[in-house]
């Protein structure tokens, strides 16, 4: 038995009934309400305790929650990328590959790009769309594929179904596209995720921005991208943690939920999160704007290049999208 590596869910996410029930229910309508109920009844306490809390005055609840919240544990991760050996030269072959590859491969081509070399504005936000546009020159289909936001799907099988629908539609309506060869093949790639033990803890939301500034890019990936796949409610780890602080973080959580990582590089994500924390910490319920909206003198909301601290060192030009490996 090797001395390390045992898969586990985040603390508090191990109650099978709660997971199955809420994962099924939480997908569309009432997602935020269900998330809150899940976290209070399943993740951070039992049903009876919650009933008792709901009868308690609001101020007392906040104080109790704040006392009970465990520190946020910052982890980082490493992607080990692996060729699947499957490649596509035509749209028909791409369809066949999308049908056949393991789920993790789809996840990699939607999200793994964030951990690869990134530079320049990419018009398309996943590898499939990028290849369809750049190699098959089918911009119409690429646009549709790029609009597929993986966060909108309960799981990767549903995402696969949506992709296959798009590809089938295109193959049905444009027969020539089934056979035209791309300029370069598409290589289906998957990744193993190595998750490292926590290397830092954060006790209070006020401490988060400082930690965020020094956080490795892979920590952002783990807590915001991987969390959406790892946790039953597809929620990022930070929002889940802030839930424990009750209504004092409600505005901040709203702001965080409005951040769409699919459209951002990890450096841009960092900028948006920082802004959300700057504007949202310590504020209660308020009609907040999305991070960056209407803010002046910040990088939030800016499309294109963002000055940021690169994961390997000094400040550099980092931007979304990219022509990755």
């Amino acid at each position, binding site marked *: 038995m090797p001395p390390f590596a045992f898969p586990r869910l985040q603390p508090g996410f191990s109650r099978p009934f709660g997971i199955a029930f809420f994962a099924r229910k939480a997908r569309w309508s009432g997602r935020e309400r269900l998330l809150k109920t899940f976290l209070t009844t399943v993740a951070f306490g039992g049903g009876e305790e919650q009933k008792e809390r709901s009868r308690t005055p609001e101020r007392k609840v906040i104080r109790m929650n704040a006392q009970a919240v465990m520190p946020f544990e910052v982890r980082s991760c490493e992607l080990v990328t692996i*060729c699947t*050996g499957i490649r596509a030269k035509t749209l028909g072959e791409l369809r066949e590959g999308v049908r056949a590859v393991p789920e993790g491969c789809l996840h990699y081509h939607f999200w793994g790009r964030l951990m690869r070399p990134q530079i320049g504005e990419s018009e398309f936000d996943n590898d499939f769309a990028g290849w369809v546009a750049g190699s098959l020159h089918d911009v119409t289909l690429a646009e549709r594929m790029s609009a597929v936001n993986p966060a909108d799907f309960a799981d990767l099988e549903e995402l696969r179904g949506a992709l296959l629908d798009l590809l089938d539609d295109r193959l049905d309506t444009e027969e020539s596209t089934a056979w035209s060869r791309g300029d370069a093949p598409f290589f289906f790639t998957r990744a193993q995720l190595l998750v490292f033990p926590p290397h830092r803890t954060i006790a209070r939301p006020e401490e988060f921005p400082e930690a965020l500034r020094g956080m490795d890019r892979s920590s952002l990936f783990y807590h915001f991208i991987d969390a959406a796949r790892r946790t039953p409610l597809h929620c990022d780890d930070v929002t889940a943690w802030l839930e424990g602080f009750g209504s004092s973080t409600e505005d901040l959580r709203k702001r965080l939920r409005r951040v769409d990582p699919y459209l951002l590089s990890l450096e841009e994500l960092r900028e948006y999160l920082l802004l959300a924390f700057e504007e949202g910490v310590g504020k209660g319920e308020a009609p907040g704007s999305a991070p960056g909206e209407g803010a002046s003198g910040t990088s939030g909301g800016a499309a294109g290049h963002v000055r940021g601290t690169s994961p390997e060192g000094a400040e550099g030009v980092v931007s979304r999208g990219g022509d990755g490996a």
Partner: protein
Amino acid sequence: MTKLLEAFEGVVYPSVLSHIRHLGRLLEGKSVVHVNSTRLGGGVAEILHRLVPLMNELGIDTKWEVITGEDAFFAVTKTMHNAVQGSEKGLSREMTEVFEETNRENARRLAPIVSEADFVFVHDPQPVPLCALCPERKGKWLWRCHIDASRPNRRVWAYLRNWILSYDGSIFSLPEFAQPMPHPEYLVPPSIDPLSDKNCDLEPGEVTRTLGEFGIDPDRPLAVQVSRFDRFKDPLGVIEAYRLCRRSQDLQLVLAGGEATDDPEGSVVLRDVLDAASGDPDIHVLVLPADAHRTINALQRGTDVVLQKSTKEGFGLTVSEALWKEKPVIGGDTGGIRLQIIDRFNGFRVRTAEGAALRLRYLLQHRARAERMGENARAYVRENFLITRQLRNVLAILVAQLQGDRERLEVFVP
């Protein structure tokens, strides 16, 4: 923090070093052997010169062994190298006999070291039979392919594949370079060492002095290609591009090549280059010893534009070297150069001598843009192509090999 890693503190982000330490602790006490065909010359040797000490500092007992052979063996491996990159010239029975016999001799010599190792990395095709020829091996063996095997000579590849099948995994620089295998095929782009003599900062005086030693005028525009004298690096195409550019721009050209002990074809190509350059005092063909790293560093820093006009390329680390020195690079649109050069961001990718000439003229004309490209170039390399990233990747693969092929591995640090 170990001493060598400490030296990277000012260069890379602290969490990168923290990752490396985590991984190192997981592998502490394990033994690793790297095997390749030369200690001098070429990107593989340069990477190993830094990677091996770094791994040792992390507590991983790491050795670097080099196979030995006669000229006939290296002539075969050069043919093989070219065939993997698509050359039609195949291997005769006599050639495979030389290849196998030399590898058998090396296997006998290295068996006591490699058989007991927890991990063995065998680099490129030259020593590839070693795994099968060491049946008593105990650890995991990985074949590291640094070259472009995307369109190999099929007969030669079929021959090599039989040897590669005995490995526990392969590592390729890009997915394009990989061929289907029944074992895991990892993807790890190579990298440069920012602290090595070839890439460290130099005083301006040293740069000027070096240019002067070779009769290069530091006040006139200069383009440099640093590469082995190899047909796939297209040195003749570079001379053609220089001549086209010279019709409208003043320009000097340096073609600097090292000599690798495993590259017997180099002298033939060098002769052709010297013939093409003869009579032009502004073309400087420099045959540098394999350890002339500071000279290469100075040439790359003293130039206005760097060329790497390869028609086939394993990865082309000279591109990252130049980008690190804030130079825009004009590179062939092939292999790993595509990953390193983003058109108009940090250089240009070209397919022809005419294209290279056009971009040369552009960069010499638009100095401010060239300077901006240079700034982008260094930032891009810092993020993606430094050896710390490669070390992370390599260590992660070793951990993954120990843990099996599960998609998510939660790492416990003892």
